[in-house]
């Protein structure tokens, strides 16, 4: 039978169309939109190659309260969350510059108001579900929702308005800012991307704050970090296992992390941490005090101790400059009159023996500071600021100018008196759990004794201390320390701004209490939206000058970052930014084949 030519041709056309269609289907770009399994775009990390396998044990000072980034306030929770979550853009702790993370590239519009980020393709959460632009949109929706009270919300308010985000396609999102932001893409560092498929329902029910606890996180949470939750034993340890879907690889293409398990041991305090490290129970140790560092350095059996150089922590003494409430006693008012006198504060600053603080509290492993920018932050310090040497004469001259005088007691000791003849006495609060700051307070006490002031050091439990300083404002003076979490002035913005919560001498002001605080506010706001580094630095320098002149905080010293690890831990490069030792946890590995968590 002869088939008509027309029919034959249409048959072949149909067949070739079909074939084309099949080929078309097989094309990766089309396939990805239909199938769920796309080729992943892994981030290849440069650096030393390591061995897969093994376990790392870290001793944590205390137990994390939660694994939910939306409510984590304490540093321990943050430390654990950091290895379980990932952000869009990450600051490399070693170089202190930004790098692509979940976003493989980004573009900032010429007017500085739009940030376009392109996500990596094929990334999966730790439970195997895919990551897409919807998760990013959901994440920022949650962060910005006022009812959620996420601490991250404040970080996303630029120019008084919250950042908005919209989806361009499955892989691209655009962030819209109300004002230009000098910090740029650094703002994305640390903002964990949340899984919409797990959290959407609790969010709609308003139950987000209740999930993600240590006991339930394994089932309720999925992250994009190198590790995921495996087991939790209350009061003892937290075991994390390798995330098989982690999106980073080494230069040879091996998927990271190298380690199979990461164990966090809970110990009660710093000394217990040292004991565990010394006995070989834990493999790395960080945030060491100088004394423990010396002890460990002296022994050095099977481990190596590293001084990573000056860090970003700054310690300071500040006075209660809050406006006195109606309930304030006359004694408090009198004291505050002294504190408000600039020359009084300058005199105290001149009398403090910073060199002794570095030597006795940090055993020389630290630097004296006179300003807010710690020496670990090399780009932003104001080099022109004066670093006056300690001078008791200068201090006495300043006090005399301010109307103070000395009276001589019967035993030859002289007491400082104010213009009304009342002796100058006050107390300095400090945290009872921090031995270094207690030492600083004791040294300051002795220094001020030489000026005739009677100072008393009161150690308090940290929570009570915080409550006194930020809530009830019932204190005279306090010694505290803050560690900036980024080498960019914006990380300390709440210290600078008069409305900030960590503007410790007079926090959360409705409007600036003094003209110089108003001036600082203005400078900081301006540098936030300046576009270039030079512009920002000029403004920031001026703000530091004002602070150095008015001395609301008397800066003391900054410790070096001290850490240690067993010899068998590879790729150990402590950084001066948090998390000091685990920042490159995906690249840490155990060297010997027989190592398995013991020495």
């Amino acid at each position: 039978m002869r088939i008509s030519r027309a029919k034959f041709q249409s048959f072949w056309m149909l067949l070739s169309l079909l074939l084309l269609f099949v080929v078309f289907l097989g094309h990766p770009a089309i396939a990805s939109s239909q199938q769920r399994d796309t080729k992943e775009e892994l981030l290849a990390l440069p650096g030393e190659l390591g061995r897969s396998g093994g376990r790392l044990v870290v001793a944590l000072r205390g137990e994390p309260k939660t694994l939910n980034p939306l409510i984590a306030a304490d540093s321990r929770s943050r430390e654990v969350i950091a290895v379980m979550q990932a952000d869009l853009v990450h600051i490399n702790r070693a170089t202190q510059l930004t790098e692509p993370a979940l976003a493989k590239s980004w573009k900032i519009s010429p007017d500085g108001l739009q940030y376009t980020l392109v996500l990596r393709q094929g990334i999966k959460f730790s439970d195997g579900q895919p990551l897409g632009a919807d998760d990013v949109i959901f994440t920022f929706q949650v962060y910005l929702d006022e009812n959620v009270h996420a601490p991250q919300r404040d970080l996303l308010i630029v120019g008084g308005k919250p950042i908005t985000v919209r989806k361009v396609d499955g892989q691209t999102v655009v962030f819209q800012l109300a004002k230009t932001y000098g910090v740029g893409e650094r703002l994305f560092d640390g903002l964990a991307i949340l899984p919409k498929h797990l959290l959407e329902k609790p969010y709609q029910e308003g139950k987000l704050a209740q999930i993600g606890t240590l006991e339930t996180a394994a089932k309720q949470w999925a992250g994009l970090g190198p590790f995921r939750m495996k087991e939790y034993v209350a009061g003892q340890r937290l075991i994390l296992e390798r995330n098989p879907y982690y999106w980073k690889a080494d230069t040879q293409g091996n998927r990271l992390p190298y380690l199979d398990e990461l164990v966090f041991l809970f110990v009660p305090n710093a000394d217990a941490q040292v004991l565990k490290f010394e006995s070989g129970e834990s493999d790395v140790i960080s945030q060491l005090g100088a004394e423990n560092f010396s002890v460990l350095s002296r022994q050095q059996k099977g481990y190596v101790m590293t001084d990573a150089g000056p860090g970003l922590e700054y310690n300071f003494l500040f006075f209660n400059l809050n406006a006195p409430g109606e309930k304030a006693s006359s004694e408090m008012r009198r004291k505050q009159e002294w504190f408000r006198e600039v020359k009084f504060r300058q005199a105290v600053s001149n009398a403090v023996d910073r060199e002794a603080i570095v030597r006795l509290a940090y055993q020389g492993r630290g630097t004296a500071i006179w300003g807010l920018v710690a020496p670990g932050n090399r780009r932003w310090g104001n080099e022109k600021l004066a670093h006056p040497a300690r001078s008791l004469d200068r201090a006495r001259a300043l006090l005399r100018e301010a109307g103070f005088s000395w009276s001589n007691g019967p035993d030859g000791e002289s007491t400082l008196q104010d213009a009304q003849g009342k002796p100058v006495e006050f107390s300095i609060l400090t945290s009872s759990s921090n031995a270094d700051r207690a030492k600083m307070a004791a040294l300051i006490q002795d220094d001020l004794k030489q000026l005739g002031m009677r100072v008393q050091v009161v150690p308090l439990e940290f929570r009570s201390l915080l409550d006194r300083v930020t809530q009830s404002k019932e204190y005279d003076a306090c010694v505290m320390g803050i560690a900036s979490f980024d080498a960019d002035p914006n990380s300390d913005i709440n210290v600078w701004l008069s409305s900030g919560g960590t503007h410790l001498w007079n926090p959360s002001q409705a409007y600036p209490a003094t003209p110089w605080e108003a001036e600082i506010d203005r400078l900081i706001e301006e540098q936030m939206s300046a576009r270039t580094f030079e512009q920002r630095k000029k403004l920031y320098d001026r703000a530091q000058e004002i602070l150095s002149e008015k001395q609301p905080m008397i800066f003391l010293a900054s410790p070096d970052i001290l850490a240690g690890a067993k010899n068998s831990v590879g790729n150990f490069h402590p950084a001066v930014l948090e998390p000091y030792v685990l920042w490159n946890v995906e690249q840490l590995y155990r060297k010997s084949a027989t190592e398995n968590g013991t020495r």
Partner: protein
Amino acid sequence: MMRYFLRRSAHAFLLIAGVSMLTFLFTTLAPGNYFDEMRLNPQIAPETVAALRAQYQLDRPLPVRYLYWLNSVVHGEMGFSFAYNSAVAPILLARARNTLLLTIVATLLAWGIALPLGVWSAERRGRLPDRVLSLGTAALLVIPELGLVLGLLMFAVRSGWFPAGGMASVEFESLTFIHKVRDLALHMTLPVVALVLSALPLLIRHVRAAVADVLDAPFLLAAQGHGVPKRTLLYRYALPAAANPLISLFGFSIGGLLSGSLLIEVVMSWPGLGPLLLEAILSRDLYVVVGGVLFSTLFLAGGNFLADMLLYWADPRIRRESSLR
């Protein structure tokens, strides 16, 4: 017998109730209000704060608060811990278990050493061995407990033979049973040594005194005359006669099971009731303090009660005395 028992239990019960009221009263000395504590804890949701407020009536006057706390005791919760964000009772029980592990072992050891030593010394009273032991116990008595514990800790740290504190090593969960036991034993050694050394001197002295008092009694001389061997004489005749004060002492030992080891636990980082209480006191976690003190008092009262019961059973004079009443 029943009447004595009932009387003693009623007594103990009243004591405990009184103690709970007293401790509750003490906690009101603390300045500030309870809500500050809860506000500072980010994990406690506002709804929980409101629920707690309702459950414990925290803004009402003291007697009301006490009643609501009593209510929670009856329900097995014993109040709410602000620091641990949970009911107090489970925390207390877990820690009390750790403390008891130490103190029971130490008490048994101490009595096990003190009894034979005391009897031996009483038998040779006035002679050289007695004097030497007397000197030894005096030497131990004058060393302050703080010095003893710190000294042992220093020894542990410098020699490395014992772990310097804590209850278990990191690999505890993954060890075999035998190794678990060994690990626990190693961690327990120094705290137990400290407890035993601080309890021994007084125990030995009391045992010696009690037995020495009895050894002059005529009936023992008579038994000796009958040819009863020395060992039987001491342990089957003398010791039971001397038992009266010793049983009371034993009651004290039981009573101190929970509270006597506070300092040692704190210095050696043993996760027992002591460190919990200290922490709670320092962080104003009031219900934990009340619960902890109550727990220890329970043991104290229980110890006395047990001693009374034992005395009743062991000493016929008391039985007769009480039935006469």
